[in-house]
């Protein structure tokens, strides 16, 4: 049961990796990375139950947090083109560059 679920999640990850490798736009890649992180969380959870160690769930929770922070950082980079003190100097806020604008 858990083995089948793990296999299915891994197939999902393989498909996401195809999207990451090929992904025509940057947004495809951001979305693929985010869902890949979610799949990692799920896989750690199921692997924990598969090998009889459900305490892996704590680690899965930590991964979910890291994934969230990472995605926020990437999106902030998209919005402000920088990661430092974007809130202070608003004149540096530029529209996204054309090649990443259109999906």
């Amino acid at each position, binding site marked *: 049961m858990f083995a089948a679920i793990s296999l299915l999640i891994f197939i999902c990850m393989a498909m996401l990796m195809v999207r990451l490798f090929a992904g025509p736009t940057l947004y495809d890649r951001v979305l693929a990375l985010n869902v890949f*992180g979610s799949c990692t969380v799920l896989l750690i959870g199921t692997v924990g139950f598969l090998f009889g160690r459900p305490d892996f769930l704590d*680690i899965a929770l930590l991964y979910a947090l890291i994934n969230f922070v990472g995605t926020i950082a990437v999106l902030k980079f998209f919005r402000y083109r*920088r990661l430092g003190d974007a809130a*202070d100097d608003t004149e540096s806020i530029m529209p996204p560059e054309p090649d990443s604008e259109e999906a």
Partner: protein
Amino acid sequence: MELALTILLFVALVATALTIALVRRLFAVVMLSGVFSLLSALLFVLMDAVDVAFTEAAVGAGISSVLMLGTIALTARSEKRPERYSLVPLAVVLLTGGVLIYGTLDMPNFGAADAPVQLHVGPDYIRKTPEDIDVPNIVTAVLASYRGFDTLGEVTVVFTAGLGVVLLISGLGRRIRRRREGAD
């Protein structure tokens, strides 16, 4: 099942590494290196090295992606195509990898109970921690008490590094310069 999962993850890892080497757009490279970190963290979890997996996910997929994105924001967004390809780096990498694999041949098997690392100080820690330190978690006892000075040094190094990074990316120098220009 565990072996099959490990092999699948290693195949995915190699595919990711090859794509990182081939892709020219640096943003895609950052995303792919995040995937690389997540995959290696999964492998560490499978090998029961949960704390290493924690660190790999937090540093590899979290912080270093953010720092590399910041670097891209400051520099260029795609890699320059090399004018000519040289085989020397490939030869060096293959040689180093071969030597490392040759070095592992003499090592004890993964998880072997009679490996030297399991025989030397480990049993002492396990036996003496309840009376010496009286902490239920032996790893905590080793890190915070037996190797307390070592941990203090590590914390100092990490704190200094964090301070340096915050000073670099906070734009303090830029702000001071701007204020000075405004005053002039």
